[in-house]
Each structure stands twice: as C-alpha cells, then as structure tokens.
C-alpha cells in the first residue's frame, strides 16, 4: 500500500510538473500570424456575439446591422450568437469560452470597460497592427483610451453612451430660475423649488453600491479637476483636493436634503422613476432618459430639458461619463480577414450611419455626429454629444472591477454619512492601490 501510494504520488507529481512546464513555457506570440487580413473572396461565415440591442421601433438591431454589412460584402455571412442578457454572465461565459482557445465567436460586442482586463489576459486581439496610424483619430480620444489595454487598442468602437443633466423646464420657468451653470447654483435652485413643495427632492442621481456610482463619482471628480489615477495610470491621485471637493459636494447634497437620502440606493432606473413621476427637479442620467421622459403618457413629456452636466464654480463643466459597447476580435479566430472587415464595418462610416439611422444609440465615430443625417434627427442628445468632454473610468488596468469596487463602496459610505470624506478618500486610495497590484479578491 505504502509503496503503491508513493508511486502513485510520484506519477501524479511528474504529471503535474510536465503540465506546469508546458503552461509556463507558452510564449505569448501573435495568435493570428500568417492569416490574411484581406476580405475573403470565397464565401465565409463568421459568428458575432451580441446582446439584444433595440432599434427605434424596439426591434432587434443586430440583424439590421448584419444586413447592412452583408449588402456591402456579399462574400461574408454573419451568424448572430445571442449572449446572455446579464452583463456579468455575458462576460464570464465569453471569457471561459475564449480562454479555452475556441475560435467562436469571431467578433464580440463588449463593454467599454473590458479592454484592460481582456488585453492583459489575451482575450482580445490587439488591433494597431491592422489599421493605419491615424485610424483612431476619427474617434474621441477618451474613447480610444478606454478601448486600449496592454499592447494598444483592442476594440473597434461601436456606440457610446453619455450622461446629461435633465431638468424640469416647466418648474424652472414657474420659479423664474435659469438652467443652472454650476453645481453650486443647481443646489440652490433645487433647494428653492423643493422648499416651495413643487417637488419632493431637488436632484437625483445614482449612488448605490455598484458600477454606476463609480461613473457618477469620476464625473464629479473630473468636474473638480481631478482623476482617480495619474496620467501614467499607476499613481493613485483620487485622494487629492479635487476628490475632497467632489465627494463633499455629493455628501452635502444628501445632508442638506437636496438629494433624497435614498439616493444611496438608487441605480439608473430608480433615479429615472423618481424624475418621471415628478418628484425631482433635476436628474443625472444616460442619454436614453431623454426618450423615456418624453415617451407618450409620461408625466414629464414635453416639460423636460436636457443640457451637458454643469461644472463647479470657476471650473469647466460638460464632463460626461463614458459608457458604450465596442467590437472585439477573438484572438483565436480562423477567419481574420472577414472578422476584421465586419468589426471595421461596425466602427466605420457604413456601420455608424446605419446605427444612426436605425437606433437611438450615439455613434462612436465623431464624423457621424456631424452628418446631415444627424442634423435631420433633431435630437438634443445627438446635438450635444460633440460638446461633451468624455471622462473614462480607470479601466485600462486589468483589475478594473476591483478598482471600481473600492471607489463605489467607499464613496457610498461617505455620501451616506457613515464615514467621513477624508477617511473614505484615504481608504479609497489604499484599496485602489492594492487592487492595481491584483492583491484583492
């Protein structure tokens, strides 16, 4: 028994060593070396992993995009793979699948905060080798920064999402107030209208313990002239004066009752509901709130205005959080040419025009926002899109989910009043630092 057990163990360890060596020895070379980047002349079918996107009539957008592409490139057929609707399940399924070496899907739509993590773990193909040097200049710089990870740009931008300040035009008019030009002015106006009893609260936004609070916080941080990380992406600068100004402002909104105390549990839908049912004067939300506020039967229809977010007094405003989805290429694709063609189509003139025509998403391509088609749409969201300064989240780190978690948990406790602003910021700084080293669960 002892002998056999020993030999069994020895055999196992030998196996372990061989496999471990095989693993350690794997060089991270270009996985698509030798494949043609040209659009294939023979009929080719690629797969596209995409969640449900809706067009203007609430139909599925993906088949419309595929049609537009196939008309242009008749040799390439695109088969749609439906990804799970939950973003986290979507990402997990995708990562296990691609990390397994599977060539399916060839192209996948991914969140704008994924590239850092995906690049680090070799889950997306670096793209700089396939496009001319100035290719990325046609997109907002902050968006390209978000699409970048170790080794350059890893995703073709498809559409972006931007945040705005929505306000009740009717109530501002009634009280003789103008659209606020600074956060301080917004707090004063909101307090006045609330005290009159016309609304229950002045300003609603997203303060729950989740990704959305990271977006809100980084926006106010940018308003105050700060950022989470220094320009080189490694120094943690969140706890400076700007951080203190931003977080103090948010905390005071709750402390003075300008924002309801429940705002610390609000996600997008909660804040939108509060605004739509008439209980709030101002709302910070993504562009889609415009359509919702003006939908048929909405209490707020026709009484709402939208402007870029203001700034703090004495500083520039118009910062907007950066959201959106981009097209990534699976590094294990066996159909590089066709995959590149499709992903470039989604990001290029043809795809962006189709997107603008069929849906309410904001095109990533700057030129598309200036097109005659864009002007004809007469949408304040599209009209304002170019004026915004996009604020990316610090997502180029491979450990972004943990960085974000440190930001939103600490910000939430400061806003709710359970911890001081100073203490929260310094805890934030410590936690972000260890998250950047990958030393957090």
């Amino acid at each position, binding site marked *: *028994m002892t002998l056999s*057990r020993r030999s069994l163990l020895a055999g196992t360890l030998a196996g372990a060593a061989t*496999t471990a060596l*095989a*693993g350690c020895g794997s060089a991270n070379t270009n996985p698509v070396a030798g494949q043609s980047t040209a659009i294939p002349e023979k009929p080719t079918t690629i797969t596209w992993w995409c969640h*449900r996107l809706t067009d203007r009539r609430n139909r*599925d957008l993906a088949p419309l995009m595929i049609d537009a592409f196939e008309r242009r490139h008749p040799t390439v057929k695109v088969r749609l*793979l*439906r*990804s*799970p*609707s939950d973003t986290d*399940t979507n990402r997990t*399924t995708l990562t*296990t*699948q691609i*990390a*397994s*070496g*599977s060539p*399916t899907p060839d192209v996948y739509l991914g969140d704008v905060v994924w590239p850092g993590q995906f690049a680090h773990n070799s889950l997306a193909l670096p793209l700089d080798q396939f496009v001319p040097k100035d290719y990325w200049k046609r997109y907002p710089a902050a968006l390209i920064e978000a699409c970048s990870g170790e080794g350059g740009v890893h995703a073709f931008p498809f559409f972006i999402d931007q945040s705005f300040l929505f306000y009740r035009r009717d109530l501002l008019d009634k009280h003789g107030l103008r659209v606020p030009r600074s956060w301080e002015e917004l707090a004063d106006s909101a307090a006045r209208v609330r005290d009159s009893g016309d609304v229950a609260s002045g300003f609603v936004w997203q303060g729950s313990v989740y990704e959305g609070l990271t977006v809100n916080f980084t926006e106010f941080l940018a308003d105050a002239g700060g950022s989470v990380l220094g320009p080189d992406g490694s120094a943690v600068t969140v706890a400076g004066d700007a951080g203190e100004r931003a977080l103090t402002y948010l905390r005071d909104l709750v402390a003075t009752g300008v924002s309801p105390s429940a705002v610390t549990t609000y996600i997008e839908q909660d804040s939108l509901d509060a605004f739509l049912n008439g209980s709030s004067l101002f709302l910070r939300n993504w562009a889609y709130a415009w359509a919702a506020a003006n939908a048929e039967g909405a209490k707020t229809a026709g009484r709402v205005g939208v402007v870029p977010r203001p700034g703090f007094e004495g500083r520039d405003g118009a910062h907007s959080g950066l959201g959106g989805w981009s097209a990534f290429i699976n590094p294990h694709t066996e159909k590089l040419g066709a995959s590149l063609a499709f992903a470039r189509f989604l990001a290029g003139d043809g795809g962006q025009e189709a997107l603008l025509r069929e849906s309410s998403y904001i095109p990533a391509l700057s030129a598309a926002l200036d097109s005659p088609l864009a002007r004809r749409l007469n949408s304040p969201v599209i009209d304002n899109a170019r004026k915004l300064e996009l604020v990316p989240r610090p997502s180029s780190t491979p450990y972004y989910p943990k960085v974000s978690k440190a930001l939103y948990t600490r910000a939430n406790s400061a806003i709710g009043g359970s911890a001081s602003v100073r203490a929260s910021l310094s805890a934030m700084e410590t936690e972000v630092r260890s998250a950047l080293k990958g030393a957090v669960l």
Partner: protein
Amino acid sequence: MKAMNASPGTSRAVRRRRHPWFNLVNLGALILVVVTALPLYWMAAASFKSQEEIGANPPTLFPTNPTLDNYGDAFGTNSLGHYLLNSTVVALSSTAVVLGLALFAGYALARLPVRGSGTIMVGLLMISVFPAIAVVTPLYLVERSLGLLNSHLGLIIPYVAFHLPFAVWIMRNSLVGLPRGLEEAAEIDGASITRTLLSVVLPLARPGLFTAGVFTFTATWTEFLMAITLNSEDSARTVPVGIALFGSEYSIPYGAIFAGAMSATVPIAILVLVFRRSIISGLTSGAVKG
C-alpha cells in the same frame, strides 16, 4: 398513539395502533404529494403557455391556449437537440466507464485482501464529495494545454474520476452482502478470479450496478459547474448549461427554458417510473448508506 398502551394482543394491537395513525399518515402523504408535484405541474403548464400567459397576473392554472411554440423555440432557436445529444453522450459514456471500473474495484474491496482498504474507502468518500470549485481551475488549465476543452472527452474524464468513488462505494457495499458460496464453488472448480467475477458475481451484482448507474447518470446529467467551465462553447454545451444560457429577446425566456426542462426531464421521469421497483429497492437496500 395512546392505544399502544393497551394489552399486547398482537393482531388487535396492530389494528389499533394503525387505526389512529391512518388519517395522519394519509394526510401527510397527501401534503407530500401536493408539495412535490405542484412546482412540477407549474413547470409543465408553463411550457405550454404563450409568452403573454406566462407573464399573466393573476396566473392561470391551465394553459388557456396550449401552444408548442416554446418547444419550437427551445429546439429551433436554441438548439436544444444538440445539447440533449451532448448530455446523452457524456452521461452515458461516463456511466458506462464508471460502472465497469467500479465493478472490479468494488469487488476487490469487498472480497479480496487489499491492504488499507478502509483508508481507500474513506479517501474515496471524501473525493466523491469534494467541491467542484476546488478543482475546476486546474482542470481548465490542464485541459486547455491538452486541447480537451469543448469536447465530450474533456467532460467524460473528470466526470468518471469524480463519480467513480461513490459508485465504488455502492458496489462494494452491495457485493459485501452477497453470499460467498457460489464464488467459492467456482474457485474450487478452478475458475480464475476474473472469470468468477464475470460469470458468477456479475449476475448477482445487478441491483448494485443499477443503483450505482442511476446515481452516476443523474449526477452527470445534472452537473453544471464543470460543464459551464470546461464546455462553454455553444456546440459543446450540455443541457444544464444550454438551458442556463438560453438566449432570447426576453430577459428570462421562461417558456423556452421550461420547454427545454420538460424535454430533458420527461424521458428521465418516465424511466424512473418504469424502473421504480428496481430503483427503489436498490436505493433502499442499504447500498447507499454504507
């Protein structure tokens, strides 16, 4: 219950002991049946309801307009047929290999002088209940290096390894209870141990094999964590993974999910009903408990 204090006239006592229990037992059985069956019925009914009716409030007890659309959705858009095929291949192959190995190992542990068999039994028991999360990463990394991910074999190998211990445990316990006489006779007739096992023991070992087979098949048919990790690609998914990741334009496509669930459950349920005598006698024969 108080009747038990009465005089110990056997047949009378039995009758009197049973009588007060009668209603309570039947009531309990009724509750058991309703509680077990209601959710199952709810699933079956929903699989025949339209998407609108599934989302109806108040809920409808019977499908008002029974439809097979959900089944079409499950087998058409969601390629359930493919998942069923994968599951069947993986579960049947795993079960076959497990039973083959478990028969020999169980026999050795029950009858042959294997040193440290107690330790082996306890070790096997521990491995059979090891949380899958503890081994799934290394399995993933190793299978990736060997190119086994997203293949039937890539699931069969770990399934065999992780379900074999319990099957050995069952086989050993059911073989240990068999009378030795026949084996001894065969040996005296000069038959080798292997021949004795195959021609004499095997026919007697059927209940144990059946029980081990049922357990292994059920466990591999329903396994999720390894399946979603090792075989995540659509073409290699098993039924549990396929159903968990059903895509649709609704946030949770209950209709298609329950149609898929019915398609995966009804064949098993029919088998359970048909073989209920063998399964139950196998399960209650003591083989499971050790």
